[in-house]
């Protein structure tokens, strides 16, 4: 099967700043989430895929062709950028009709299709109003409507759920789930893991312009389990507790900054479950009172930080 997206050693430099760094990946048709913290290079990667940027090095292939200035390909792709960038003084219907006419729809057909799409995203009551009067959520839905209106094969969305209220988020999620369910392809970029988890089980993790990992949600969680977990313990006798933890051998790293109850004891472990049992036992036996226990959460940022450290060979 022809890959939907194929990137071979793709690097994008903005003068001396690295946007995307040596990314190679091959994705068959389907739904994918592109995850990364802000400034990770997600938008650069998406712009390379729609041909608005050309790679400094490497090759980009989308639906079998080079996307740069490729008119025929652009008719098969729907793109929703992260920024709003809509003309304020026209109505949503006018704007969508205009963009559909650029997809070679006749004036009449474009208007009918624009009305259908705006209705589909829940904008039927506001489509005749000026875009300037729209809320952020309404603008997001209008943007989504322009991306799906010409019924593309591949939908590329950059942060499409930001600014949506829970109801709007649910309706957009439903629309995108149906999109994938109908056998169409989707690449959705976000920095929030659970937003994408609701839509697809396949992820690409990007940070610092590098593709750190790709795979399913299970793969990601497996990675999270393998990534050392960091805990901060504030207790009555941190020095004694540190010695006990080292003696038990459950920790990868123990860091002590002082010996008062205010000084946290930082512990890094790969096996959180075993360590918690061992910690309870040690605390009871040593009669140390624990005032506070903080664990680093399983947020995407900590995963990225850990993956970056693995990538650099620090872990």
């Amino acid at each position: 099967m022809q890959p939907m997206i194929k990137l071979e050693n793709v690097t994008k430099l903005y003068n001396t700043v690295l946007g995307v760094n040596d990314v190679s990946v091959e994705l068959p048709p389907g739904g994918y989430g592109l995850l990364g913290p802000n400034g990770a290079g997600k938008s650069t990667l998406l712009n390379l895929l729609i041909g608005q940027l050309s790679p400094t090095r490497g090759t980009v292939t989308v639906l079998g062709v080079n996307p740069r200035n490729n008119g025929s390909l652009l008719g098969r792709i729907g793109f929703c950028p992260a920024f709003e960038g809509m003309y304020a003084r026209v109505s949503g219907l006018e704007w969508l009709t205009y963009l559909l006419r650029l997809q070679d729809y006749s004036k009449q057909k474009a208007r009918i299709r624009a009305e259908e799409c705006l209705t589909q995203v829940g904008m039927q009551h506001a489509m005749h109003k000026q875009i300037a009067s729209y809320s952020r959520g309404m603008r997001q839905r209008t943007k989504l409507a322009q991306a799906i209106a010409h019924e593309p094969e591949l939908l590329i969305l950059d942060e499409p759920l930001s600014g949506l209220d829970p109801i709007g988020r649910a309706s957009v999620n439903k629309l995108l789930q149906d999109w994938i369910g109908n056998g169409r392809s989707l690449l959705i970029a976000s920095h929030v893991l659970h937003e994408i988890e609701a839509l697809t089980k396949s992820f690409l993790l990007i940070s610092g312009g590098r593709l750190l990992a790709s795979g399913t949600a299970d793969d990601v969680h497996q990675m999270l389990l393998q990534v050392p977990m960091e805990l901060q313990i504030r207790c009555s006798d941190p020095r004694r507790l540190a010695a006990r933890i080292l003696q038990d051998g459950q920790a990868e790293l123990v860091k002590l900054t002082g010996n008062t109850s205010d000084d946290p004891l930082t512990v890094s472990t790969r096996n959180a479950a075993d360590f918690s049992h061992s910690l309870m036992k040690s605390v009871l036996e040593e009669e140390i009172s624990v005032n506070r226990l903080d664990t680093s959460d399983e947020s995407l940022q900590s995963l990225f930080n850990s993956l970056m450290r693995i990538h650099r060979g620090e872990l």
Partner: protein
Amino acid sequence: MNKLMAVYQYELRRTASAGRIIWWIALASFPVLITLLLQWLWTSIESRPGGPADNPQVIIESSDAEGGFEQSPGSFSSADSPANRSDRGRKGWGGRDRRFDPQEDSGRRRPRPRRSAPEMSQRPTIWSIIYFITTPCVCCAMSVLLTAAPAVASELEQKSWSYVASRPQGILWLMLGKFLAAATWGITTSITGVSVALLIAETDMKSQIWTTIVMLSILSAFAYSAIYLFLGTLLFRRAMVLCVMYTAIAEIMIGAFPAVINRLTVQFRLRALAVQWAPLADDFRENDEVSWYFGEATSLEHIMWLGIMTGTLLLAAIQLARYREFTAAVESDL
């Protein structure tokens, strides 16, 4: 064509803001105001006690050692024979007229010459020159400047570029649509301005003046649209500054140089066409300096030059926009 019309109609609809319409009215009013001012000035001169209407006098051309007479309002003249016209032409058109003053001949200090309104036969020349300067050169060029120069910058600033650029050949149609929209703004401003102005102006040959100015405005609008669109694409962050500098340095200064380089400017071509088409006095048109300045090129050659210039710059602007990486993500990502 559907795509071009889509962009064109949308651009006209989008750019028709209150601010833009005020600018449009202000620019279209420019030739009208100049006309009103001159009409009022000439009327006041003519109706002044002791003015030409009350006191007909003979006028002698100042540089006329060989003897050439020109008629002041209500006065007798024997100078307007074709032979004398061409003779004057060689010496220079528009020699300053002086009233006949017997004191001058007797060697006494001559009083300051009295101003007079131009006679009706001179007015088509005067109005043609005035409308050429005010309409295709100022109204039209300014109107186009305000629309075409920020065409790319406005799309990038409000980040709407991506939506059009991600459509099949979207950039091509966007640039062509913006070019046509800018030219339309320029042409409508000019036609409105000159039409209203000519309704007020007291002159003969109104239809010939109107036709000339409208034709020149159309050529001016397309040529300047292409130039400003190209400059706006080349340096979109400083588009207006660059376009104003280009207009001042290239079109106004270099365009006025009596050298080969001025042939590269739109102004030169428009002036040459104006001389050929406008109902100017024969002695102006046949003047040696005028003939030398504008050369031997025909109207068709000038139009072809403008067409080639417009087409080349428009193509360059489109190619530049297609191959430059205009995306808001570039800046927001870093």
